[in-house]
């Protein structure tokens, strides 16, 4: 087990290093720099800025400087938010995105499990078809449409909830539903199909033949064995959800980290691009690591391989 964990850990670190290196190279290859503006800056002003941020040094030196910074836990200065470091911004915005992500994930799980179980159990009935319809709707409605629809209905028409900003518990409702809808739909779809398969397996028939209670058959025998595909996607899904969504944060004016995945690139704010990429990769790697751990608990055969 220890060897399994160590291999996974080293593997994860290697992935992070490769991603950092590729991002470093690719963002510098993109045309246009962080200080290209409609209002062109005189060369002497540009030279001062380049010197301040060490942009006048060779790439390799900048890369080395960046890696050393990471080792010290310093993600560098933001070129756009000039008074703040990338670490400051990530520390302030990540908890917001993470909270929203956890809420959305909770919503997705709470919504998808009952939906999938009832759909699989009553497969091909109107219940199943309604669940399928809801799931298709959830997957195909883009965030900006669903968000706008929810704002229109619950804020403008009914006046129950505020349309934006992150203030109290009620302000989390609409963004949570918007962000959680697609994963909820996806999870229920996935779980339903694997559950349908399990319910037709011989061991389920045997369990029923033994006269076990229907609930025991469903939850203990069938559901347990259908969880693997769901767990597989839950890892990366959690990482994606808790690092924030550009669209949802943008629509609901949420002070999270998600927006920087887009704005850092359009601003060519190099350290910010690196910062959010690093956080995302780190989370993705750790999420996969934990999923691997969970696998070995759910299905002991995986550990022995």
């Amino acid at each position, binding site marked *: 087990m220890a060897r399994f964990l160590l291999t996974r850990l080293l593997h994860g670190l290697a992935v992070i290093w490769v991603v950092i290196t590729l991002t470093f190279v690719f963002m510098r290859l993109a045309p246009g720099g962080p200080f290209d503006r409609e209002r*062109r800056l005189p060369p002497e002003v540009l030279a001062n800025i380049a010197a301040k941020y060490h942009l006048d040094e060779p790439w390799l030196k900048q890369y080395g400087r960046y890696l050393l910074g990471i080792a010290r836990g310093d993600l560098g200065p933001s070129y756009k938010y000039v008074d703040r470091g990338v670490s400051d911004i990530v520390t302030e915005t990540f908890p917001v995105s993470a909270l929203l992500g956890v809420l959305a994930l909770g919503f997705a799980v709470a919504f998808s499990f009952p939906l999938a179980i009832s759909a699989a159990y009553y497969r091909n009935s109107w219940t199943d078809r*309604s669940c399928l319809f809801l799931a298709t709707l959830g997957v195909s409605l883009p965030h900006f449409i669903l968000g*706008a629809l929810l704002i229109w*209905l619950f804020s403008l028409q009914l006046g129950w909830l505020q349309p934006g900003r992150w203030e109290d518990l009620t302000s989390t409702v609409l963004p949570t539903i918007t962000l959680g809808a697609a994963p909820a739909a996806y999870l229920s779809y996935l779980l339903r199909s694997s559950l349908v398969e399990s319910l037709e397996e011989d061991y389920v028939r045997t369990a029923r033949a033994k006269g076990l209670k229907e609930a025991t058959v469903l939850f203990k025998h069938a559901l347990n064995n259908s969880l693997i595909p769901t767990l597989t996607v839950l890892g990366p899904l959690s990482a994606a959800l808790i690092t924030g969504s550009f669209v949802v944060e943008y629509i609901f004016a949420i002070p999270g980290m998600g927006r920087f995945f887009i704005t850092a690139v359009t601003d060519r704010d190099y350290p910010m691009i690196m910062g959010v990429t690093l956080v995302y990769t780190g989370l993705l790697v750790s999420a996969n690591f934990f999923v691997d751990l969970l696998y070995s608990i759910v299905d002991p055969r995986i550990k022995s391989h």
Partner: protein
Amino acid sequence: MLKQPRKNAIPSIPALITFFLLSSCNPFSPTGDLKTFRVNLGTEPPSLDWSLATDHASFNVIANLMVGLTEFDKNLKPAAVIAKSWDILEGGRRIIFHLRDDVLWSDGKKVQAQDFEYSWKRLLNPKTASEYAYILFDILNAEEYNQGKIDSPELVGVKASDDRTLEVHLKHPVSYFLSITTFEVTYPQRQDVIEKYGSKWTEPGNIVTNGPFLLSSWKHENEIQLTANPDFFLGKPAIDKVEMFMINEKTTALAMYEQGRIDFIDNQSIPIFEKPRMAKLPGFKAVPQLRGYYYGFVTDRRPFDDVRVRKAFSMAIDRSVFPKILHGGERPATSWIPPSMQAQNPKIGLNYNPPEARRLLREAGYPDGKGFPQVTLAYNTLEDHKTVAEAVQGMWKRNLGVLVRLENQEWKVYLKKLKTDPPHIYRSGWGADYPDPDNFMKLFTSLSGNNDTRWKNPRYDQLLESAAREFDEKRRIRLYNEAQRILCEIDVPIMPLFTTTEHTVLNPRFTGLEFNSMARLFLREVRPASR
């Protein structure tokens, strides 16, 4: 056994749609008290350090926290604020500002001339790496200090001769220098505070300001709160508190306004399709901006190296369509200096004249557009730019028989391309830093970094040089008239298309808000409207 779900658990789609349609428009009354005023900044201000700020969101906060030597009056002329008077000496080479002695910093200290000297030299210090350092390059040795050619800030031509007197030495007479002192980047700063807190000096609790409001909280990416400064030398503002939100999405911000959660919105909170509806609301105002929109010709690329072709293209555009397709109150323009700026002259420029345009094109060797090479019009990716480009493309096809290829690129890629591999025609715009024609006209001088047309005219450069040194208003206007004729009628390296307008809506519960032609928001006079 699991229970069967209730039959009516999922409401039918037609029922939902009917419910949407039957629901009436927003019935909610405004919330919030009359002592708090709420606005949408649109985005997180990148910096509240006025030596480093470069954008509207930042300047709109700073403009309510600080005052400087001068500010604009209603006619966009510099009026005294901290400077109670000034002497212009040696034909405009030396300016002496005499400061009031009743302006206080928020920690109780008096604002002194030394605070200006420190701030200006900090702006110019190469280590500050300020983008707006160049705004003070007219000051003696300022550019050299910024370039690192001289190390000693003592040699820079700005000096506090005593607590109340600021002396400025310029390289040459500069008639617009007073306008520069209205710009936020020239506001005073406290050396002790900046040295104590470093880059964190702009955070609440650290920052020391002198204006109508104080920074009381700053939740990044979320909200800034200001409170009225009881010791502001022009009197405490009527409202106690200002809340500035950072809502990027226009429809959300507008929904917040309609719910009474915001009291003032401008273009960054009004989606384009809502503009006609907003114009009917009480509290609506269209504020013309000192912001020009133009197409430039790259004048060393065939066929636009021929002035007749450039003139033909400019004359083939019916500029009156722009407000109709953009719905933003755009003002068509054939000349470059925008309305309400000194020397603005709508009579200058090439008017819409398709027969004359066709004649010029024929003369240049392309009768009815025949034999015209493939040319490209480029713009940065944005819906409005596309709308304009397609309209203009249609007019050129109709009036000249030339089909121009359109090309769009992401902003930074576009900016890079303008420098390295420019298209035949490009889109650009310019907003005033300070409302003087020099700020607009200087764009197209031979050495300007913003002149992507590659056009050079020594006479134009010389006229601008003379106008910058000219203090007599009439003579100055004459010089700019001649320069504008060269730019928009004779050499035509650019085609001005229109100037922009900002749409604003103020909740009728309030009055006194000032939103100026440089999109600057002043809240000092905001007060509850009398009923």
